[in-house]
């Protein structure tokens, strides 16, 4: 397990802060809830509404991640290599606005500035729990613990603003799930969004699936810039007029209006999961999807909400015999009959739905024999797979366990073809990590568009990239504190025993409360989204 810290030219992150986020949340307030009446979500009145200032007057869906008042210099540092990563924008989960109450007489900028510098003001509900690009990369969706989905749209490219190519602005925000109470079991169902999956776009509207622990919802996100006017059957407030008073028939006309983005729940797939849903995956037939919980996987048709097919069930008759759970599942990207699921024992099963209705027999079983020299009481826990992802080509599977990320060839079941150490220096800290429960953290992993690079998260706001061809790897940090505007952000190094060099971080000073669990990679370009608690960082390849 050689720890290679060769500074890969490809990954040198040149950090360019294009905006200071303090103004963003205020602006956002304006177009945050433009569609509430349609589905009963009412924004709470905020004292901010009464704040009059230059920043609250922004109309429409203006770019919210570029500051109006403080244009940042845009020249890059010279000397950075090809393929450097730069910070494009840092997007804050918007609810911080509500913290700015009762400060009307103070300059809003100041308040914002001080609040946003202090990460501790982020509430639990603001923590981002999933990140997902759509199939074109034009949209980026995040879900959070508060049950909200925020969709960002990529800034349109313009000739005089080439640098803003990779910027994303808020497109739509909606409350996808609400906290519920199960009266039969007497338990609360969290609103936290566990996963979001986009459906391939088929018309002007966008569709996505979002899920919490129990319920999957299909959302339609569509734009509207015209509205019908001139009805005379109803009055201004929408009440039907007395037909006797209507003497003429008027044909309503469509009039242009300010662009509005509506999110409407089109389907609710509920009551099919006894345990917590950990994965959803859209099938390549685009007609079905699956949802996996700890013990079962269900297959749904998008049009049918009142029934689903149970395709995997590993629940033992006697729950006391339970020793293994399903941790993640995904459909093959091209073959609509096959899917994989991973388990807490570090194994992956590939199933073929043509074989039988209930896929309790796998067609392939991927497992690596345990290395006896690394054996300990924690072996099973750290081998538990937290995420599984097919490569875009469908040839490989990537799995993430606690310390490594592995790439498997579908044609070889007995061991992975590649194993990358994510943070092997933690191997000696496993007992502490068990004690503080970090050992159960569920890190996810992603492929780049060409399946040549993989990315996954770590602690201390670090995330790692591995180039499969050059075998180079790099540790980057998504952190506000260490990012000077326009400065090149050095790759991070963690000191492993011995003397600590100047720019290295010792294992003991890592912050285990700052973890990067969720990341996303643009489907075709080198743009990545990294969720660090309540911040979403978007980096891009500098050269492109």
């Amino acid at each position, binding site marked *: 397990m050689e720890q290679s810290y060769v500074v890969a030219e490809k990954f040198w992150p040149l950090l360019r802060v294009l905006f200071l986020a303090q103004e963003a949340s205020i602006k956002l307030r304006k177009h945050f809830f433009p569609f509430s009446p349609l589905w009963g979500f009412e924004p709470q009145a905020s004292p901010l509404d009464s704040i009059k200032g230059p920043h609250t007057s922004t109309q429409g869906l203006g770019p919210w991640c570029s500051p109006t008042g403080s244009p940042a210099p845009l020249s890059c540092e010279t000397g950075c290599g090809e393929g450097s990563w730069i910070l494009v924008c840092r997007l804050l989960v918007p609810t911080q606005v509500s913290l700015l109450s009762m400060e009307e007489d103070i300059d809003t900028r100041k308040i914002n500035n001080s609040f946003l510098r202090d990460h501790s003001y982020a509430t639990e509900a603001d923590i981002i729990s999933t990140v997902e690009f759509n199939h074109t990369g034009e949209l980026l969706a995040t879900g959070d613990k508060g049950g909200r989905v925020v969709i960002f749209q990529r800034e349109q490219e313009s000739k005089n603003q080439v640098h803003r190519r990779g910027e994303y602005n808020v497109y739509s925000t909606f409350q996808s799930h609400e906290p519920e109470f199960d009266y039969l*079991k*007497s*338990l609360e169902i969290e609103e936290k969004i566990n996963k979001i999956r986009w459906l391939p776009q088929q018309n002007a509207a966008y569709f996505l699936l979002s899920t919490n622990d129990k319920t999957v919802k299909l959302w339609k996100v569509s734009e509207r810039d015209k509205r019908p006017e001139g009805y005379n059957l109803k009055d201004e407030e929408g009440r039907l007029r007395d037909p006797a008073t209507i003497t003429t028939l008027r044909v309503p006309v469509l009039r242009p209006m300010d662009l509005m983005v509506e999110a409407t729940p089109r389907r609710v797939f509920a009551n099919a999961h006894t*345990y*917590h849903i950990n994965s959803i995956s859209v099938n390549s037939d685009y007609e079905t999807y699956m949802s996996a919980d*700890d*013990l079962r996987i269900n297959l749904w048709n998008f049009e049918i909400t009142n029934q689903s097919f149970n395709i995997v069930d590993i629940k033992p008759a006697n*729950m*006391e*015999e*339970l*020793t*293994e*759970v399903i*941790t993640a599942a995904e459909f093959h990207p091209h073959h609509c009959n096959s899917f994989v699921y991973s388990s*807490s024992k570090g194994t992956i099963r590939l199933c073929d739905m043509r074989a039988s209705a209930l896929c309790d027999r796998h067609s392939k079983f991927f497992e690596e024999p*345990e290395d*006896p*020299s*690394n*054996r*300990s*009481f*924690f*072996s*099973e*826990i750290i081998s*538990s797979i937290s995420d599984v992802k097919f490569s875009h080509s469908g040839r490989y599977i990537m799995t993430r366990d606690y310390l490594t990320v592995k790439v498997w060839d579908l044609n070889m079941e007995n061991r992975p073809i590649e194993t990358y150490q994510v943070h092997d220096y933690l*191997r*000696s*800290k*496993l*007992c*502490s990590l*068990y*004690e*503080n*429960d970090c050992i*159960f953290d569920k890190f996810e992993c992603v492929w780049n568009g060409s399946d040549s690079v993989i990315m996954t998260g770590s602690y201390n706001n670090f995330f790692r990239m591995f180039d499969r061809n050059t075998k180079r790897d790099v540790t980057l940090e998504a952190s506000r504190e260490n990012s000077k505007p326009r400065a090149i952000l050095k790759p991070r190094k963690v000191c492993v025993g011995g003397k600590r060099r100047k720019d290295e971080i010792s294992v003991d000073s890592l912050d285990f409360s700052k973890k990067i669990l969720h990341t996303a990679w643009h489907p075709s370009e080198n743009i990545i989204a990294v969720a660090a608690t309540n911040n979403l960082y978007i980096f891009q390849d500098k050269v492109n």
Partner: protein
Amino acid sequence: MGTMFARGLKRKSPEDGEDMEGGLAGARATPSYSLQRQSLLDMSLVKLQLCHMLVEPNLCRSVLIANTVRQIQEEMSQDGTWRVVAPQAAGRAPLDRLVSTDILCRSAREQEGEHPAPDVGDGHMADLVPGLAVVPSAQALRSPQSSLWEVDSSRENRGGFQKSLDQIFETLENKTSGSVEELFADVDSSYYDLDAVLTGVVGSTPSAHASGLQAFASAAAPPPSSSCRSDLGELDHAVEILVET
């Protein structure tokens, strides 16, 4: 020495008979190892109990913890480490042990002399930790081949155990979650030492391992009395008392 620790720690029982042998001869006989293994077991049981206080716990986490407990208990019942650990827990409580275990021991000491009915202990244990291989291991201990004092000590230990678990959870329930964190926060430093031994990997160089052990010894040994080694003499004494009563 370091390799012996690594080898001695086994994960699944059936496949690794050879490793067990090495472990029996070396690492597992070491009192500090058993002590730490016991601490890990205690910690896991506390975690499990906290899981079971929830209506719908994180199933993956509970299963992994339960499997860990199974491993430890299997290993303990197979190499007979109950002999060392159980009477020690029942008989005397080293002051500097980890907080969680300290509480367990304190309660056990208070219970000294009392013999809770084994059935009660069993039932409660199974109730505490459903899905565990507790019962099989208990049966192993009670099998005819086991010597009398083994049975007694395990019974004593288990009785004390469940009682003390109750006590812990009573306190936990009465206090805020903040104090729960406090309780576990205190554990932190000692577990860094535990890491060195239990994960085994650190000790790939013998010297590093030795220092880890030393660190643990100084942390774990009760100041007034002595190191674990001298405890063994007292253990016999404790066992005698137990058997007599």
